[in-house]
């Protein structure tokens, strides 16, 4: 008899999620029909390859390769970033072309560009995007501001749901300025009932709800296109790497609530409130990541790390403000059977000793400019590592240079498994022949004998 999720150990949950990843379903819930027996075999080999690299139990057949792409396939297919943001078919056809022609082991779907019209409908303020604040040929750029004010920690800590819906959302979505979430905890008996609903009769509030519904329609349209692509490309033998995403609580607070500078000053002026807010954000992040991963039947949860890099915090600050809640997030995800997939931007040379405090074979760390020999030495026995193919090399170098770099990485970090080939930071503009060289060199030199 099948046991309930609650009765399974974290190890068993991880196996269940890997099993689901290995045996994908189509959108109707039936077993996915692969294009050919060859495609099915390739799909399963790819997932098994990464599973073995992550779990550190068995030597994989070779080093898996997963280019982390942003707008790369748009450029690759001859579209502008703006085009693939506003035309989902173009996004899908560009991603398809890239995956089928360059044949990476894993892909990140066609979701990278995001739904431009959805952002337009909501008048999203957190980012500039191609054709909206940056040129049609540009990429996303975060518009950092203090969307949460220095004196709003108590509001966030006491009632995060209310803070997000009634204070934060109206600030980050222009169309939701008048938005107010139902306040139904003060609904009592019968006489006063109607008063609580008065706001929903006011035209600006109604306009906000109308925008929400339009945005919902657009989100659905986009998600259908993205889901269909993942299904189609899986049937051709190419698994998606991750669907779920979470963030280190410190990054959530620093990236999109208080801003880099705001948070850096807060750790001096109001450290206790910062710590409390981080604790409040932690379970929210665990649920966000685990929920998406379990829903999609795909164990990896993508976690880009930003503000804990070398230089961004002292050792002491990292150990006080960054790591404790990041570790709680990792443990919370691992408990749910997920594999945290950390995309570590910048360099982490001074953090390696701290982050090795994770259970063996449950995490994947893709690095950017971290010293890879040192990372292998410090983490090799507890976690799968990867990354580091420099984006500047992919942008302006030669295929020969890329091949040499890739081979050197395999020689340095590939030993004994536990290694994933990936680029350092998200790939936008790069020479196609260089990305191909990275993929091909991994297949050639990354085989374990």
């Amino acid at each position, binding site marked *: 008899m099948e046991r309930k999720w609650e009765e399974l150990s974290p190890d068993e949950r991880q196996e269940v999620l890997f099993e689901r990843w290995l045996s994908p379903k189509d959108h109707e819930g039936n077993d996915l029909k692969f294009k050919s027996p060859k495609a099915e075999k390739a799909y399963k080999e790819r997932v098994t390859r990464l599973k073995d690299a992550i779990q550190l139990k068995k030597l994989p057949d070779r080093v898996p390769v997963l280019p982390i792409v942003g707008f790369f396939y748009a450029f690759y297919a001859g579209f502008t970033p703006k085009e693939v943001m506003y035309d989902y078919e173009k996004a899908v056809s560009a991603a398809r072309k890239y995956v089928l022609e360059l044949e990476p082991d894993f892909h990140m779907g066609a979701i990278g560009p995001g739904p431009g019209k959805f952002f337009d409908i909501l008048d999203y303020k957190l980012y500039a995007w191609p054709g909206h604040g*940056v040129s049609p040929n540009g990429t996303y750029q975060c518009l950092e501001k203090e969307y949460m004010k220095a004196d709003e920690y108590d509001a966030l800590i006491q009632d995060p749901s209310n803070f997000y819906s009634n204070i934060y959302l109206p600030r980050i979505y222009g169309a939701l300025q008048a938005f107010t979430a139902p306040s139904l905890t003060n609904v009592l008996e019968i006489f006063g009932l109607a008063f609580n609903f008065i706001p929903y009769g006011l035209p600006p509030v109604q306009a906000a709800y109308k925008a929400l519904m339009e945005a919902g329609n657009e989100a659905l349209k986009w998600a259908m296109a993205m889901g269909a692509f993942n299904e189609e490309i899986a049937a051709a033998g190419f698994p998606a790497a991750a669907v779920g995403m979470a963030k280190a609580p410190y990054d959530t607070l620093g990236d999109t609530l208080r801003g*880099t500078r705001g948070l850096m000053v807060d750790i*001096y002026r109001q450290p206790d409130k910062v710590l409390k807010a981080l604790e409040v954000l932690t379970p929210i992040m665990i649920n966000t990541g685990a929920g998406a991963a379990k829903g999609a039947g795909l164990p990896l949860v993508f976690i880009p790390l930003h503000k804990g890099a070398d230089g961004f915090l002292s050792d002491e600050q990292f150990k006080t403000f960054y790591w404790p809640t990041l570790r709680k997030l990792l443990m919370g995800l691992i408990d749910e059977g997920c594999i945290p997939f950390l995309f570590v931007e910048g360099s982490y040379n001074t953090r390696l000793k701290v982050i090795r405090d994770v259970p063996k074979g449950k995490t994947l760390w893709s690095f950017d400019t971290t010293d890879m020999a040192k990372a292998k030495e410090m983490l090799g026995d507890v976690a799968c590592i990867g990354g580091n193919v420099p984006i*500047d090399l992919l942008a302006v170098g030669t295929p020969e240079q890329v091949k040499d770099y890739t081979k050197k990485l395999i020689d340095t970090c590939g030993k004994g498994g536990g290694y994933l080939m990936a680029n350092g930071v998200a790939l936008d503009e790069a020479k196609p022949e260089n990305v191909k060289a990275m993929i091909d060199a991994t297949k050639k030199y990354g085989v374990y004998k």
Partner: protein
Amino acid sequence: MAGNLVNALADLKEDEALKIVKDRLNAGEEPLKILEDARKGMEIVGKRFADSEYFIPDLVYSGEILKAVTELVKPKMTKAAESKKLGKVVFGTVAGDIHDIGKDIVAFMLDVNGFEVIDLGVDVPVQKFVDKIKETGAPVVGLSGFLTLAFDSMKQTIEAIKDAGLKNKVKIMIGGGQISEEIRKYTGADAYGKDAMAAVTLAKGWIGGK
């Protein structure tokens, strides 16, 4: 107690620094002398950052304290501060890129190391760099960029500087996010700096050599 403000600022003791400033202003002290001490404190902050004793949050916080000090002192100022500077550096994040944290750190370090930084901000059009170089006669230009699209913006900016006939009058350094020796070659810059201290060393080398 002139030493106190220098140390309070260097040690990032905000409350103490502000109290000293208020006391000294109340005692009728010349505002410029107070600012001079604050500057000395910031110099120590810069040195500690260069020695990896301080990190980015410490720099940012020191800037906040200095801002608060300046706000207290400014209303009492009767004459403008004059400063002797080593030389001018025209500086900014290149076109299409709006990242400012790295740029601000380098500008801060150049400033506390005695350079006059002409900070053009972010997403700076090519022509603005050219115009500013002409206008100020600055011998050093710093181009900052975080995104890969900055590679081409830097290249275009440097080409425009060459086309304006300014190439032999200025030295150009680049830095930020994914900038490397490869990108230096690609853009035609004179040098690339890995971090803020590298920028200071480069600027000192070039301006000192003139």
